[in-house]
C-alpha cells in the first residue's frame, strides 16, 4: 500500500489497487468518531452510448438509466439491503451524478460488517421485472418533485441551453418519457459493463485503520468473479456554440431567477501548458474575485438594490469546456446582465485581492479535513475530473501568480454565453 503525504498538511492518503483492478483511497482521521465509505462506479447519466472492446458497434441506452440502476441496486433476493444496514444502525444512501454513481455508508461501529455488506450488495445484481416496474412509479414522483423546484430548473435548463451534444443537456434522472423506455436488458447490460472493479473505486475517510480496511476489501473480493471489460464511452464532440442563448420560463416564483452561463473552451489555454486542475483553480479564483462577495459588482448591485442576496458562482468541468454559471435573484435582469458583461470586458485583478483570496483557499483546504464527507467528496471529484488524486493543493496555491492569472483573464473575453430567466407566472 502506498502512503502518500498530502503536502503541507499533517494528513496522509493511503492508496491500494487490488489485482482485480479495484482502487482504494483512504484518508484516516482518528480524531473523528465516525467513518464514511463511498463505493463508486464511473457510470453517470452521461454514459448512455458505449461499447466494450468485444463489441463492434456502440449501444445506446435510455437517458436516466444510471440513476434508475442506482435505485434498483438496493434490492436483494431476500429483501432490501437497507434491512441489513438498519440492523447495524448505519446511515446509508446513494446518488448519481453526470459521471458517477456512489453508494455510501456512514457509521461509527461495525466497520467490517458494513464495509463487507456494501461490497456485497453493490456486487449483487438482482433486477426482476416486477421490481423494475415498481421503481418506475417512485422515480416518476421524484422527477415531478424536482420539476416543481425553480432552483433545480435554473441549473438543468441552463445545461439544456448551453450543451448541444453533451449529455449534461439531459436530466440526470431522465424524463418521465425516458424512464418508460428502460428495460431489464438495458439495466443488466449497464450493470455488467460498468459495475466491474476496473471501473470502480472505494474512498474511506474518518475513523479507520487503512491496513484493516484494505485487508477486509481484499478478503471480500478474492472469491468474487468479475467480468472486467474495457469500456469505450462514445466520444461526444461538443461545439463552442450553445444550444440556446436566451430563454425565459415561467414558474412559481415571485422574483426573477437568472442564470448566465459561460462556455469556456479549455483549448484556449493550451499555450500556458498547465494541467487542468491548475487551470480550474485559476478560473475559480478569478470568478470569485470578479463576482464573489468582495467584488465591485456585488457591492454595486446590492447598494443599488438590484439584488438582495449575493451572486452564486457554479463551475462545471467537462473534457473540453469549463462552464461557469452566475446565478442570482433580481427584479432587474437587464441591469444584472449589463453589469456582468461590463465586468468581464474590463477585468482588472489586484495583487491584494489575489493574496487575500489565496489565504481563503488555503484556509478552506486545511479546515476541510475536519469534515470526513467533504474529504471523501473531494477525492471523488479529483478522480472523476482529473483521473488522479491531487496531493499538493497547498503548493499549488503557493504557485498561483498574477502573471499567469492575467494571461488567463485575456481568454475570458468574448466567450459564448447563454442566459436563462425564470419569471413569475402571469395570472
Amino acid at each position, binding site marked *: 500500500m502506498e502512503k502518500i503525504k498530502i503536502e503541507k498538511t499533517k494528513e496522509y492518503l493511503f492508496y491500494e489497487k487490488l489485482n482485480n483492478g479495484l482502487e482504494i483511497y483512504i484518508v484516516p482521521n482518528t480524531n473523528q468518531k465516525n467513518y464514511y465509505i463511498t463505493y463508486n462506479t464511473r457510470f453517470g447519466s452521461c454514459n448512455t452510448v458505449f461499447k466494450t472492446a468485444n463489441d463492434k458497434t456502440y449501444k445506446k441506452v435510455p437517458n436516466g438509466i444510471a440513476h434508475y440502476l442506482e435505485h434498483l441496486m438496493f434490492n436483494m433476493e431476500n429483501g*432490501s439491503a437497507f434491512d441489513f444496514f438498519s440492523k447495524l444502525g448505519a446511515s446509508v444512501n446513494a446518488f448519481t451524478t453526470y459521471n458517477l454513481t456512489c453508494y455510501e455508508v456512514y457509521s461509527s461501529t461495525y466497520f467490517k460488517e458494513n464495509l463487507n455488506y456494501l461490497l456485497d450488495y453493490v456486487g449483487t445484481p438482482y433486477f426482476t421485472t416486477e421490481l423494475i416496474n415498481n421503481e418506475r412509479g417512485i*422515480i416518476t414522483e421524484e422527477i415531478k418533485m424536482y*420539476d416543481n423546484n425553480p432552483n433545480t430548473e435554473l441549473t438543468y435548463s441552463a445545461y439544456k441551453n448551453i450543451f448541444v451534444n453533451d449529455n449534461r443537456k439531459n436530466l440526470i434522472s431522465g424524463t418521465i418519457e425516458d424512464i418508460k423506455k428502460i428495460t431489464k436488458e438495458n439495466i443488466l447490460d449497464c450493470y455488467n459493463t460498468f459495475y466491474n472493479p476496473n471501473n470502480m473505486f472505494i474512498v474511506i475517510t474518518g475513523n479507520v485503520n487503512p491496513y484493516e480496511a484494505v485487508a477486509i476489501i481484499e478478503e471480500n473480493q478474492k472469491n468474487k468473479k468479475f467480468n472486467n471489460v474495457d469500456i469505450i464511452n462514445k466520444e461526444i464532440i461538443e461545439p463552442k456554440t450553445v444550444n440556446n442563448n436566451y430563454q425565459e420560463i415561467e414558474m412559481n416564483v415571485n422574483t426573477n431567477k437568472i442564470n448566465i452561463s459561460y462556455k469556456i473552451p479549455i483549448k484556449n489555454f493550451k499555450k500556458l501548458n498547465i494541467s487542468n486542475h491548475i487551470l480550474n483553480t485559476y478560473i475559480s479564483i478569478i470568478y470569485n474575485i470578479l463576482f464573489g462577495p468582495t467584488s465591485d459588482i456585488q457591492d454595486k448591485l446590492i447598494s443599488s438594490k438590484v439584488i*438582495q*442576496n449575493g451572486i452564486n458562482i457554479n463551475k462545471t468541468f467537462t473534457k473540453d469546456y469549463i462552464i461557469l454559471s452566475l446565478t442570482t435573484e433580481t427584479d432587474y435582469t437587464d441591469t444584472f446582465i449589463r453589469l456582468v458583461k461590463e465586468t468581464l470586458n474590463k477585468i482588472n485583478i489586484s495583487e491584494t485581492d489575489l493574496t487575500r*483570496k489565496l489565504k481563503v483557499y488555503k484556509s478552506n483546504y486545511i479546515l476541510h479535513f475536519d469534515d470526513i464527507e467533504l474529504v471523501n467528496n473531494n477525492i471523488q471529484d479529483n478522480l472523476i475530473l482529473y483521473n488522479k488524486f491531487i496531493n499538493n493543493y497547498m503548493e499549488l496555491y503557493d504557485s498561483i501568480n498574477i502573471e499567469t492569472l492575467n494571461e488567463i483573464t485575456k481568454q475570458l473575453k468574448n466567450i459564448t454565453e447563454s442566459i436563462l430567466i425564470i419569471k413569475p407566472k402571469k395570472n
Partner: protein
Amino acid sequence: MTYKTYKTNTYNIYTIKTDKFKTCHMEIIFRNNIKKEDITKRSILTEILVENSKKYNSRREMVIELENLYNSYFYGVTNRIGSSILTSFCFDFINPKLVMENIEDFIKFPIETILNPNVNNNEFDIVTFEYIKERVKKDIEAIIEDPKNYSINRLLENMCPNTESSININGYIEDLDLITNSNLYDYYINMLEHDYIDVYIIGDLDMDKVSKIIKDNLKINILKDHKIKYEVENKINNKTKKIYENFNFSQENLCIGLNIENMSLYEKNYVANIYNMILGGGSLETKLYNRLRNENSLCYNCVSIYQKFDNLIILHTAISKENEALAIKLMKKALLDMYKGNITDEELENAKKLITTTLNMSLDVPGRIIDNYIFKNLYGLDELEIRIKNYNNVTKKEIIDFAKKIKINTILCIRDGENGKN
C-alpha cells in the same frame, strides 16, 4: 472534551475545550418568549446584524475582514423552539494557533459586530435597512418555491391558528410595512436589554483567556429574571378536519397533523422519538416509507416530523393526484399499526440503533456538539451517554401506550393545478 462554565452577573459563557477540530465555533445566543407581532422584525434584525457593522460598513468590507481572518464565517439564525425564540449569531474560525494569529482578533469580531452595528442617529444605515427588508420580503414570498414547507405551513395555520406552533419564522408580508428603521432600532435595543444571552464556544483554545476576552468586550449590564416558556398547548380535535386547497404545484402535497396528549417528560424525550423513527422519521425502512413507497410506488418520499415542544407530529408526502385516497388510507394504516402495536422487535431495535448512530454523528461536528450542550442547559436534556442508554431501554409497551395519546387533528390536501412550469 472539557466542559467549563464561566459566569458573569448577566450571562454565562459555556466552553468546550477539545483538540478534535482545526475549526472553532462560537455562538452568541439571544432568547426570549416568541411574539408573533415581532417575528418579522426579528428576521430583519438577524440579517442586518451580520450584514455589516460600524467598523466594516458594507457587506463587502465585512467579508474582506472575514477573509483576512482566514475565511471566518459569521451568520445569524433565528429558530422557534416551542413558544420561545432563539437567535444565534454563529462564528466559525480557524484555530488561531494554526496560523500564528492572535485569538483576541477572532473572539472580538462577532461581539463588536453585534454591539456596534452600522447605526447613525438611532437608525440603521438606510441602504442596508432597505435591501435587507426587501430580502426578507422575498424570503417570505419564496415559500411558494418549496411545496413541502408551503404545505406544512398551511397545515399548521389551519390546525393551530392561535398558538405559537403556526408562527412563520421568516415573518409576514403584512407586517413589513409597519417596520421602520427607527422602530427596528428600538427593537434591537430591546433585544439587547431584555433577551437572555448565552455564549457558547468550542475549540482547542485557552478557555480562561477566551472567557476573559468575552467578558471584557461583551458588556451587558441588565439583569433578567422573567420566565421563558417552551411548551405550546395545542387543542385536540375530537373530529378530524379535512381541508382541500389548490396550488399549481406539479404534485399533490398531502399533510396529516397529529396532536399528542399528556406526554410525560420521559415520553417527550425518549419514547416519542423512537415512535417517530419507526413511523416515518428514521431510515428508508419506516412504516410510512414501506407502505407508500416500497409497497405501492406512490411517492419518492414520505416522512413524519416530531415537534417536541408543540406536542405535534406532522406527516408529509407528495403524490400524483389520482393516488390521494389511497395515500391517506395507507398513512392512516401506518398510524393504526403503531396504535395496535404491530411493531416488530427488529423495527424497534433498528430505530434505537439509528438514533444512536445519529447522536454519535453529532460528535464529529462542532456546531452540533454545541447544540447538544444548549439543549442540555436550556431544556434539561440528559447527557449524550445517558440519552443513548435511555433510548435503548424504551420498550414496545411504552410505544403502544404512547401511540394511544396520538389523535389525528387535520388532513390537508394541497391539490395540484397545472404543471408547475410554463
